[in-house]
């Protein structure tokens, strides 16, 4: 029995690999397994080659593997593309008749199209495959059909029952023709878990944090955050507005925030470019806003559906002029949730733009997580409440203070009016050209707020750093591979994950890296942006970076391979 398995379903865009894969995820999750799954797709709606990868295990998973133990190909070219990635003892499943491919020993022939056709429609092929894999993995029970029922809920009765029949046929075909038990999975109980991807976690975080206004312009891989918030908008009295462009998106959010609503926007690098002036507006007017940059390979349009971590340097100083900001870089589904709540708190407390930097890999990858603990997080408000507002007199929006933070009143709650301004302004919010006031205001927005932000930076997460021979460092979605590789290293490899990259956790990192000889950053970019940042903020020169910038995420085996050359 395998301790873990990787499964791949490959075909053209539109053939439904994601449906099969996702249904299997749900089935496996209910059966008590841990899974990690990811859909690799092209920037097209039909054709090309897409594939769904699913890793299943009895222990929690955080990343992908290089090879697959079971590969099901739904079209002919998938064979050529993915045949090579089969593991040694692996099983490759194809439909030889349909694609007119000579039956070879190396693959198992599943007449999936014929079976589906016999049920009246080749569209049922997905359910046949689903059933077949369930058979190979020995997963038959009530859940197997429940998952299908839920997937098709709302569809006609006939469609549901046909699909169930298709799944059954697939299952039986496996039982009859694939005799081996080698892929049988033992029953497990991971307890009740949630199956979720990074974007869903961010959306839930936003809802939990009290986001009431969400404006964005669709852009892969950020769009599904908007989808998720929109899906629940009615339940939570949130307005989701699709903006005409990214400039509108951030400016609408800032307007809503000025009026008193927690507000958010999301995009990917190209759209973020268009938001940059708005970031600077948020800083100047001291209006909180939370912005997600779901990174994808760039520059320009790049690879719309793939992954990269190449916006780090950009975000650090995006926007003209100088001001305080915070940049969070969640590494897991859980962190995506908690840090999103934190982002809203920080933004409101310091009255600044807070950036959440994620990427396509974290955004789209599914994992089952124990739970999202709603009570361990606090939603704190940093505005003058309605009650407090009554007592406010002679209100000055930009009153100078030691912390750089001026009490923030909400329009119409106080009896005074509130002036905010994108020009340099004096305390009451009107335009000034005064040199002394200018200097004070810059210090307020930059130095003073930074001091506060530094004092509550989310510290690096360090694992096994003291004893390790090699320490890997990353931010964002590389958490998963770093953790797994470290766990597998019998103590030789430690790692540090940075959930917050700005303000930089300088002191803590210096302590951690103190006298460590081998420190390696692991980054999904081409210039070692994290290594540069570490150097500039701590003075520590990182000698080696393992960089990947082909649009694909790291996987455990690839990283291990790379480490061998070090």
């Amino acid at each position: 029995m395998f301790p873990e398995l990787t499964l791949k379903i490959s075909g053209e865009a539109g053939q439904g690999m994601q449906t099969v894969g996702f249904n299997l995820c749900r089935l496996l999750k209910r059966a008590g397994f841990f899974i990690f799954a990811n859909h690799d797709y092209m920037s097209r709606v039909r054709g090309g080659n897409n594939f769904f990868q699913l890793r299943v295990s009895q222990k929690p998973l955080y990343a992908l593997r290089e090879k697959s133990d079971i590969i099901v190909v739904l079209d002919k070219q998938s064979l050529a593309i993915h045949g090579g990635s089969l593991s040694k003892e692996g099983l490759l499943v194809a439909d030889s008749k349909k694609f007119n491919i000579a039956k070879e020993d190396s693959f198992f022939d599943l007449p999936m199209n014929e079976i589906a056709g016999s049920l009246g429609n080749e569209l049922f092929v997905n359910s046949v495959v689903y059933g077949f894999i369930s058979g190979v993995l020995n997963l038959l029970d009530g859940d197997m059909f429940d998952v299908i029922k839920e997937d098709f809920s709302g569809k006609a009765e006939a469609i549901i029952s046909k699909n169930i029949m298709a799944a059954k046929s697939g299952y039986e075909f496996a039982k009859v023709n694939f005799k081996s038990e080698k892929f049988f999975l033992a029953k497990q109980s991971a307890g009740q878990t949630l199956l979720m991807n990074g974007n869903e976690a961010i959306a839930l975080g936003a809802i939990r944090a009290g986001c009431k206004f969400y404006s964005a312009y669709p852009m892969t891989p950020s769009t599904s955050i908007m989808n998720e918030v929109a899906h629940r908008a009615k339940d939570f009295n949130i307005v989701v507005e699709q903006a005409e462009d990214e400039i509108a998106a951030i400016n609408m959010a800032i307007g809503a925030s000025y009026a008193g609503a927690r507000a958010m926007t999301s995009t990917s690098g190209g759209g973020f470019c268009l938001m940059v002036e708005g970031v600077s507006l948020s800083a100047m007017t001291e209006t909180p806003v939370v912005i997600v940059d779901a990174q994808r390979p760039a520059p320009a349009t790049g690879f719309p559906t793939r992954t990269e971590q190449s916006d780090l340097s950009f975000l650090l100083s995006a926007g003209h002029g100088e001001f305080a900001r915070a940049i969070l870089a969640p590494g897991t589904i859980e962190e995506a949730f908690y840090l999103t709540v934190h982002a809203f708190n920080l933004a409101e407390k310091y009255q600044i733009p807070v950036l959440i930097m994620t990427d396509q890999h974290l955004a789209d990858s599914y994992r089952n997580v124990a739970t999202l603990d709603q009570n361990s997080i606090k939603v704190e408000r940093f505005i003058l409440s309605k009650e407090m507002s009554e007592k406010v007199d002679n209100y000055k929006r930009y009153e100078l203070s030691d912390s750089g933070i001026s009490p923030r009143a909400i329009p119409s709650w106080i009896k005074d009016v509130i002036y905010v301004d994108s020009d340099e302004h004096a305390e009451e919010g009107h335009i000034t050209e005064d040199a002394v006031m200018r200097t004070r205001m810059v210090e307020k927005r930059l130095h003073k707020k930074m001091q506060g932000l530094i004092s509550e930076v989310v510290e690096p997460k360090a694992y096994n750093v003291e004893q390790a021979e090699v320490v890997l460092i990353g931010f964002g979605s590389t958490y998963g591979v770093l953790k797994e590789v470290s766990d597998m290293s019998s103590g030789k490899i430690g790692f540090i994950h940075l959930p917050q990259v700005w303000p930089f956790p300088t002191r803590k990192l210096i302590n951690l890296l103190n006298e460590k000889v081998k420190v390696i950053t692991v980054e999904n970019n081409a210039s070692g942006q994290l290594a540069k940042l570490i150097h500039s903020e701590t003075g520590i020169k990182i000698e080696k970076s393992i960089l990947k910038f082909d649009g694909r995420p790291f996987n455990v085996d690839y990283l291990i391979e790379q480490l061998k050359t070090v």
Partner: protein
Amino acid sequence: MNINDFKSNDEIAWCPGCGDFGILNALKKSLVKLGREPKDILLVSGIGQAAKLPHYIKCNCFNGLHGRALPPAVGAKIANNSLTVIVTTGDGDCYGEGGNHFLHNIRRNADITVIVHNNQIYGLTKGQASPTTDTGYVTKVQTEGVILESMHPLEMAIALGCGFVARGYCSDAEHLSWLMLEGINHKGFSLIDVLQPCVTFNKKNTYEWYSKRVYKVNDDKTYNPADKELAYRKAAEWGEKIPIGIIYKVEKESYAEKTGLDKRNVLIDEKIENIDLSLALKDFI
């Protein structure tokens, strides 16, 4: 409310004689008539001479980025549907840099009033052509005279389905403040394009030039502002005669009505400290 309730302490930085003064006065008048308190009114602007206006009146003020007056105005209105939201913007701010927001916010139809100080020039940046500068006008950039066809904001607004399309003239404060009040009371996106001489940089479209040409379209009681074809025709008039008044007016559902915002708890009044996700989390089991 009286006019002093809207007095701001900020020093006015416009040129003496600028048409913006007329707009400021008309707006104050209309706000007095409106009867809401300053704290319940929000003025939003971008950048330009026009966009300085919110500082010169006592109301809430969001003075944002050049070209970006409309998005924060709509964002604020959605967040707090009880605010009266008025945008004061320039021809460059609204139709130039901000053209895309103009276009789509008409479609969005939030209940805001947009007052465009149309001086047919970029005033604050010292006299380049704006989208509405008359063809042929010479500037330091348009050294051979403007060659682009000047934009027709009113026709455009009608084409986009705007429910309230009006033109005012800054020198007729009575008429203008009436238009503003009508605009504010109209549910949905109200456009008031205001003819405004820039005494410093627009040497063509002067007080004299406008005064000779403007006439009040609504004086003709047979004029039906709900008639779209008629409105198109009126909106296109620009030459010897220039109509001012309500050119087009139809009732449409506003954004708040369509989203039900008008019937729900005002967003900013929601308590957010303890939002319970339990039900939502069930979907992920």
